[in-house]
């Protein structure tokens, strides 16, 4: 309290640092953006990467200026908590394998097959179903070891959301969540845990954020998308999934980018969201928060690409700013004009 009064008294020059908490997935990028932004404007950001669930809890409790979550909140949840959400960046979840003699991008899997493997139904790499998709590929007679996340995570949420969409069997048996009852396999702690297990265990398949797949030089697969095409995980294919989505028809910007239409779309794509309160207590602070996000959208693309994230397409950014104009208010007047 005293601090804000003091800051207000000192004028805008002594800009207070912004605070945020939540998802771990965008943390490296938010840190990078905050760093550049502070050099530019003097406004810093203190972001705590405590996980999506924690971020949602913190913003509801109003202990931070914004929360960050890999899983979007439904319109009903947003309204109940008085929150606005918007997508900040896009990332992809990538199935990776450890198979001797199989090069990155050589193995093709269909959506149904990936679900069957994770259900524990397909037990060997030389299973006829896998062989049928991969004629000419020498598949070893190894047991498949499924690797999943052991900790609750937004990455798991995106991955299971996808399996839930594409496989009725998965929908019936497991469902979608940040933590689910995995029918098979072993769990690694964090993206780095999954990456380590996949590197250690021959014949394993796991799923990690795109950046981890690149950094650890893991073997990615080609996955069949909604249009029936086999695509590789690249920034372009994530961008295609984001661009093909119809954000304007999504109430509360609740949109999950998994299994999107489009020939070039990567099927397990997800946006990472930012949550802020609809009713802001401090107009100038809210303005500087939105200024920061606007700067990220406008100037942060290069930083995002360097760190293997995908910036939001321009039309989605325009839509987000429209939402700010109409929904974010302080004392009855719009914060963003």
């Amino acid at each position, binding site marked *: 309290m005293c601090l804000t009064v003091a800051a207000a008294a000192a004028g805008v020059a002594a800009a207070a640092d912004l605070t945020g908490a939540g998802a771990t997935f965008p943390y490296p990028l938010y840190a990078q953006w905050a760093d550049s932004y502070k050099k530019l404007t003097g406004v810093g950001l203190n972001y705590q990467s405590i996980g999506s669930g924690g971020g949602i809890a913190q913003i509801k409790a109003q202990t931070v200026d914004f929360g960050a979550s890999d899983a979007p909140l439904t319109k009903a949840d947003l309204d109940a908590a008085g929150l606005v959400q918007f997508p900040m960046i896009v990332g992809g979840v990538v199935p990776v394998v450890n198979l001797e003699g199989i090069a990155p991008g050589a193995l093709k899997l269909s959506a149904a097959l990936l679900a069957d493997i994770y259900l524990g139904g397909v037990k060997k790499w030389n299973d006829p179903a896998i062989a049928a998709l991969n004629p000419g590929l020498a598949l070893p007679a190894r047991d498949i070891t499924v690797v999943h996340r*052991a*900790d*609750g995570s937004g990455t798991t949420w995106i991955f299971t959301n996808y399996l839930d969409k594409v496989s009725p069997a998965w929908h019936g048996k497991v469902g979608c969540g940040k933590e689910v009852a995995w029918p098979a396999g072993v*769990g690694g702690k964090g993206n780095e*845990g999954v990456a380590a297990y996949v590197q*250690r265990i021959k014949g394993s398949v796991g799923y990690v954020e795109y950046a981890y797949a690149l950094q650890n030089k893991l073997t990615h697969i080609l996955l069949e998308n909604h249009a029936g095409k086999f695509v590789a995980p690249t920034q372009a294919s994530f961008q295609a999934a984001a661009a093909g989505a119809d954000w304007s028809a999504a109430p509360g910007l609740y949109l999950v980018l998994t299994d999107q239409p489009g020939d070039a779309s990567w099927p397990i794509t997800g946006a990472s969201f930012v949550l802020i309160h609809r009713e802001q207590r401090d107009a100038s602070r809210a303005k500087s928060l939105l200024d920061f996000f606007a700067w990220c959208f406008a100037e942060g693309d290069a930083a995002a690409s360097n760190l293997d994230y995908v910036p939001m397409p321009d039309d989605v950014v325009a839509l987000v700013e429209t939402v700010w104009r109409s929904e974010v208010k302080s004392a009855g007047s719009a914060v963003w004009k």
Partner: protein
Amino acid sequence: MTDRRATAATPERRHPRPWGDPLFRSLAAAAAGFFLLLTGAILLELTRGSSLSLAKFGPSFLWSTAWNPVTGDFGALSSIAGTLISTAIAMALAVPLSLIIALFLVELAPPAVSKPVGAAIELLAAVPSIIYGMWGLFVFAPLMSDHVQPFLSDHLGFLPLFQGPPMGIGMLTAGIILALMILPFITSVMRDVLRMVPPVVKEAGYGMGSTVWEVARQVTVRYGARGMAGACLLGLGRAVGETMAVTFVIGNNHRVGASLFDAGNTIASALANEFAEAADPLYLSALVELGLVLFLITFAIQGLTHAWIRRLERSAGRGQ
């Protein structure tokens, strides 16, 4: 320890203050009472936090193998089993080894050996557990999957305990990592206990014409039984509640496998993994109830150990 720098030249008789002892006694009692209070408060808080889960699942929580955050169906059996099995493996490996090392350091090794080895053990005991976990995952797990597990499968594969694909992570690896982690801990306490055995007792043994081995077994170990059980208990306490070292190598799934090669989980690893993102109240409550179960398991182990020590002392015919 009288203060000789008194200003008066004549030695003065010290008058003990009449309130010193009672004050000290009540302070000490308060400190001891505070511990009881703290234990009670923890128990109360855990029970309160798990009320949702207690109400919904009742005692069946203890033997249900379900763990489904999506449908909200939880049971603790896989975590309890994993905790007990990994701890049992760790103790079975660490206790005999610790005893042998401690005996060697105290009875057999020349000072030139026992001093540096002792220092190394103290150092190892201070290594944070996450280091054991990372070392376990990156160095030890490949060793397990390439050499140890295939060897066990080849020679003991007829037992269901040693069947399944050699992933290198799982219950056995977790048990061995735990054993390595508590070994220096138990050893250093045991060494101190054995050192405190009065030389005169040992000399009496040698005087009777006993060999070194006989004295160690019949005299030293008997004499120090209580302290050594305490050492084991300390190690056990660490193993039961160990989080990070286990989480890295156990494979973290909520299933009970027949084979020691299977992945599993422990109560501590489940809590470490799932607490941060457990937003649903029932899910959170089930996790807190897991904590309560761990608390009670630790309590039960303490009680059993104390009862066992008492029996040991009665049969040995001497207390300490």
